[in-house]
């Protein structure tokens, strides 16, 4: 009886998610160009994930992007929310609505907007030139050193609002008495933050890190539209390598191995963050 209720959902889920996931694991053990018969290579594709310089670089870029997508937004949002706990301000609802908007706009649109901001004659360079920093102005997305941070900063822009909204919700649950107690003990703003606010936000921080780290690893859209991995391969990331290898250079097995590695990374990081947060509370 119950199985009939579960059946339609599981049928679609099984056929179009579980089966492909299993097939990805199988494909990752072969060398295949997508057309001619595949050759069994065992774990060679995974060895490449660790040993191949291009792939190692892609995973390294992902680590840099985690700083921009997860670490910076979390720290900035904590600092912002800390300044806001001390007073009830008007317009909080409007503030929340505005800060959350980047989360709902398609990444392709975000990429279009930021490509223009970073353009050689775009607003960013204009501002720099107008304050006399002509030497700093450059074609940001065409620069081997600055393209990756430029892409990462877009991640910071998208994720900061999410973190702020999350932390504001958490802060609103802290009982007033805790602040008063801290103040009676003579705590200043900074000590109040570390003894009252930060411990109360443990759960929210864990959720924020989970969501933003996953976003940092699944940023195919942004990289594809903004830089296509370039210049050279300076902004390529694992999710972009999956696409490039499978559909542009005909290395399907390697693409599948990168995809499986990426999935494992997401599982491990998600469980790891939750585990650390839980251990802290008990």
């Amino acid at each position: 009886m119950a199985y009939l209720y579960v059946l339609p959902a599981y049928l679609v889920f099984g056929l179009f998610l579980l089966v492909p996931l299993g097939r990805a694991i199988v494909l990752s053990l072969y060398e295949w160009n997508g057309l001619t018969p595949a050759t069994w290579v065992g774990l060679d594709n995974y060895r490449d994930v660790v040993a191949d310089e291009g792939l190692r670089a892609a995973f390294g870029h992902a680590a840099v992007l985690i700083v921009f997508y997860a670490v910076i937004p979390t720290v900035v949002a904590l600092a912002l929310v800390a300044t806001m706990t001390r007073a009830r301000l008007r317009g909080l609802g409007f503030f929340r609505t505005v800060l959350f908007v980047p989360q709902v706009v398609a990444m392709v649109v975000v990429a279009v907007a930021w490509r223009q901001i970073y353009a050689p004659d775009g607003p960013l360079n204009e501002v720099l030139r107008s304050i006399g920093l002509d030497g700093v102005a450059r074609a940001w997305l065409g620069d081997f050193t600055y393209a990756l941070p430029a892409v990462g900063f877009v991640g910071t822009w998208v994720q900061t609002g999410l973190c702020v909204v999350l932390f504001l919700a958490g802060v609103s649950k802290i009982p007033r008495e805790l602040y008063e107690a801290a103040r009676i003990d003579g705590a200043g703003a900074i000590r109040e933050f570390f003894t009252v606010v930060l411990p109360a936000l443990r759960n929210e921080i864990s959720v924020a890190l989970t969501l933003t780290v996953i976003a940092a690893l699944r940023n195919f859209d942004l990289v594809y539209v903004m830089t296509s991995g370039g210049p050279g391969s300076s902004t390529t990331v694992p999710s972009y390598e999956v696409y490039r290898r499978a559909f542009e250079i005909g290395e399907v097995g390697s693409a599948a191995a990168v995809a499986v590695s990426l999935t494992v990374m997401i599982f491990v990081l998600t469980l790891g963050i939750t585990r650390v947060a839980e251990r802290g509370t008990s």
Partner: protein
Amino acid sequence: MISRSERWVNYLIQSAFALFALYPLLSVVSAALTPQGQVPTLLPTQITGGNFAEAWELGRFGTYLRTSVVVSACVVVLATIFSVMAGYAFGTMRFPGSALLFYVLLLGIMVPTEAIVVPLFFDLREIGLTNTLWALVLPQTAQSVAFGTFWMRAYFRSSSRSMMEAARLDGAGHWRTLWSIMVPIGRPAMVTMIVLVFMWTWNEFLIPLVMVTDESLRTAPLGLAFFQGQYTSDFGLLAAGAAIVALPVVVVYLFLQRHFIRGMLEGAVKE
């Protein structure tokens, strides 16, 4: 209480953040509204719909929007019906294997599109399903059903047991209890799920990019990416296209923002 100056500093910081969040999007809107040949400023002195009309023609956004509407509608309808049924079973019935089946579904929520898109393409090509609506709808339904079942199960578990038992005592079967009693009172939970699935489907990029080559099957974000490749020099046109693509989700967000925020934040919190 805090001092007046601290209060003003707070407002200043908040306004700076709000401006930072809005600036890139406002710059798109203002560039789209600025007449051709004028330099766009954040608040255009003269506005025009010309860019929109031209982008609509050149970029064929009418076709792309139609595909996006059809795909989103199919995914939302299928995912909602399937998730409500499965969520009801997981939330209210006990059956052998239910825990295992549910945990596999939870893992499914975490599987990134990147992991399934490669085998999906080659297997669907094998059976002639690439370049069809099915190739866009079914994989996204599978992803949505994983989240939807998780979400609806939480609702059915928390909803009032007495109401359900009263209905069952009145002789209503599971099927009737579900659709004529539980679903109507579960509207808020369902609305949250529906707006999230709509947003994810509308904004999805990788699946359409890989699955379709036929221009008439391009979704709005995919169409925009191709449009950008062709009209890099004219930002006014490109901005108009971008605004067209973003608008439907932003409008829904403005009306139902509580659902968006609640769903995205609570959906991440495992029990």
